[in-house]
């Protein structure tokens, strides 16, 4: 731990705000609604020792232990989405029909160290 800068709560693995605008990716002509949505993303450290707040697996806990012993040979666990939620999108398809479709795994609700 002496080799790494101290991990503050703000550096811990957690969801960060990310607004995806469909016009930014050039899809505004065929997506009717929404024009964009809060998709979020995961970012942050998974330090040793992992706490319950970091939604870790048993494997991740062991990986941080090994990492603390061998920082060069074993990486820290990754900060990744562990709970996502769906959204519905209203759009024109390739035949100009109007479609309302339910899409899973579109919004990051929770992150964890895995």
């Amino acid at each position, binding site marked *: 731990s002496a080799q790494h800068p101290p991990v503050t709560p703000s550096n811990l693995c957690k969801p960060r705000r990310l607004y995806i605008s469909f016009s930014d990716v050039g*899809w505004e*002509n*065929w997506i009717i609604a929404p024009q964009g949505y809060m998709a979020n993303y995961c970012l942050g450290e998974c330090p040793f020792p992992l706490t319950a707040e970091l939604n870790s697996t048993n494997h991740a806990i062991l990986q941080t232990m090994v990492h603390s012993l061998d920082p060069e040979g074993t990486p820290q666990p990754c900060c990744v989405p562990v709970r996502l939620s*769906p959204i519905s999108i209203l759009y024109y*398809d390739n035949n100009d029909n109007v479609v309302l479709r339910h899409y899973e795994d579109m919004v990051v609700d929770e992150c964890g160290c895995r």
Partner: protein
Amino acid sequence: SAVLGMELSLQESLLLKSLGLSAKPSPKSPIPVPSVLWRIFQKRKMLPAPNKDPADACRVEEFNVPGNIIRVFADQGHFIHSTQPPRLLCLQKRLYFNLSVLEEDESLTMAQLEVKFSHNSYHASSQRQVFELRLYRSSQMVLRGVPSPERGRKLLVGQSFAQLHQSLLFNLTGVAKEWRTHGRNLGLILEISVGGGDAASAPTSEGLRNVCANVDAFLAASLLVVTLNPQQCGAARSRR
């Protein structure tokens, strides 16, 4: 920048494929968004997904059927202009909906035909006019693959309605399933005639034209189709 452009294009096509699209759509003549789809969209937006039971994620509550995709197909059929229109017949039209865009993995759980009339079609009059609507299913091909409106048709629906009605709904789930199963969709024939009277009181040609003017404002027909793609539903995935 050329390499970056190619990468972006590849990423885009991968994502579009996962969204069920063959390419980026570019609507040429976009139809107005049906109000029913707006209503469902707004309701889902108001109800936060985390609070929703996962079992309901791939269910369309409004129609109480399983499904994660709701499409509204615009009618692509044409009016039929017969040289000798049958007496009392106001309108004869082919209805055709191209269901070929449904993917093989999707199972159709509901199909509902909506026939809409313009709000301006109602003229206040002392006598309430009754019309008869008949919906036929073309079941026979004639030369050059054109379905005949006259031969080999089966009556699906026969219903009387007054011009006060702005919208008529018909359950075509069974028919649409058969269109997909047999891979042969010949469409439907819609007829609207003056009803509610006997032959003796049938209007003259001039009278028929006047009466039919009320349904000339026939606006549009559309088919709402609900399908379920189990590959894209969490409940189905976890069961697997």
